[in-house]
């Protein structure tokens, strides 16, 4: 069953994030994927994440698809204008990629090619609108396509939304979003406030996939708080990490606990490990998901 049908049928899905290699060697990519093969409903493949140059997500997704994995291809607005975005999408679809996750993308000054031209010809709302057009058989300019796409398009969001951020999320939802993946959740209370806030946007709770970052150490928690927008690891979790004899195990326990609570609240979880997926299976087992 496809990722989309599972979502629609209300299965609690598990997605897992992998970054393409910085180089041409796909060994680690395939190794990472093989560790989650048995239980991941789809693998998210990032697009020059944090503006750090890596292999194209179309290529990486295509390689994974050819090995039998279902992928969710990230597509940012940072590096391509509307022509490039569309041709990338057509190419991706022809290669068997059915799911995409759309976002603005971190600014080039945050990454390893500081002087790159920031494109942002479109924003995420406009890109989602364009995907709908491709799905209906037309390009952005209204020309008929020889074979349309049928993408299942998703959007991203932070959990803590001020009013203007909520307005933007509503616009994304109005552009045919079929699932939403959130920034990492560390506080179930805040997550339910978020679910409450988006109650009236017309998106079903079962389309929301909550982000999970298993912590490795107290330091990793502090790093996330300081450097990653939209993430707030609460004090009590930082303390638990600090006092743990085996911080990595504690991080896994915390992640598993969160997943347990999220089960039943939303449509699934999205695992974004620091490093590789070596421990992902354990965490999901501890959470009783698999």
């Amino acid at each position, binding site marked *: 069953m496809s990722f989309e049908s599972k979502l629609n049928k209300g299965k609690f899905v598990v997605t897992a994030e992998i970054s393409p290699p910085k180089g041409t060697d796909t060994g680690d990519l395939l190794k990472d994927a093989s560790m989650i093969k048995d239980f991941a409903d789809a693998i998210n493949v990032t697009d020059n994440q944090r503006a750090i140059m890596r292999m194209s997500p179309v290529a990486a997704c295509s390689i994974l698809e050819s090995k039998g994995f279902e992928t969710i291809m990230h597509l940012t607005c940072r590096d391509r204008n509307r022509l490039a975005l569309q041709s990338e999408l057509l190419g991706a679809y022809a290669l068997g990629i059915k799911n995409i996750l759309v976002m603005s993308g971190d600014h080039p*000054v945050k990454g390893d090619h500081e002087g790159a031209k920031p494109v942002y010809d479109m*924003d995420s709302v406009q890109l989602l609108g364009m995907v709908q057009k491709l799905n209906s058989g037309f390009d952005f300019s209204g020309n008929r396509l020889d074979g349309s796409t049928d993408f299942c398009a998703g959007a991203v969001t932070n959990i803590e939304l001020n009013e203007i951020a909520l307005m933007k999320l509503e616009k994304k939802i109005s552009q045919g979003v079929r699932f939403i993946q959130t920034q990492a959740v560390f506080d179930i209370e805040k997550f339910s406030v978020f679910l409450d806030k988006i109650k009236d946007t017309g998106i079903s709770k079962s389309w929301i996939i909550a982000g999970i970052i298993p912590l490795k150490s107290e330091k990793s928690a502090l790093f996330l708080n300081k450097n990653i927008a939209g993430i707030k690891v609460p004090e009590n979790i930082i303390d638990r990490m600090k006092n743990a004899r085996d911080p990595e195990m504690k991080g896994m326990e915390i992640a598993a606990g969160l997943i347990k609570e999220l089960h039943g609240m939303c449509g699934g979880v999205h695992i974004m490990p620091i490093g590789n997926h070596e421990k992902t299976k354990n965490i999901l087992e501890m959470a009783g998901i698999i």
Partner: protein
Amino acid sequence: MIISSQKKFKELLRALKERNIFIIGCGKCATKLHVGGEPEVLEMRKKLTKAGKNIVGWMVMSSACNISSWDDVLAKNPEIGKSEALLVMSCGGGVSLISSLSERQVYPALDTESLGGVRLEDTMKELCGMCGECTVWEFGGICPVSQCPKGLLNGPCGGAMEGKCEVDERTCAWDEIYERQKKLGKLEYLGIVQEPKNHSKKKRRQAV
């Protein structure tokens, strides 16, 4: 107002191969911003002389981007004839115009950054990105094309931290837009799904 800043002197010297230099300042934006008015021109003359250049003369044009007769300029400033190169302390518009009229080697002394203004005492940068289809009222007069480093038209990215933009120390432009529209009672504008800009309005070589 065109916002520009002075190049590093070292960088300038590296480009400036000629010895006999005539300096031109600009009486408009560059004067207001203290980067190319009379005091800065005189300071530049001092520094270049110290660096071994021969400054054959200098002037401050009323505006370097608005020249009705180059012959007049030459008549009033015959030293230009003795120069091997002109150093222009204006925005890129003035530099280009003077290059085309003087038919001489022209060097910019400034880096031109953006279209902004001076509000009371504050220099405001990047007020307008010159997109060629102004819809700034929909954003409460705060232009996301130029004030948001990603030029996002439909709302903020998720990158702001504690209200600060992902890219620099400034407040996220979208928080400002929201606050302004709220104050004006025009929040409904922010619910509009904005189409992408039509970049053909901003041709690189439009007919005059």
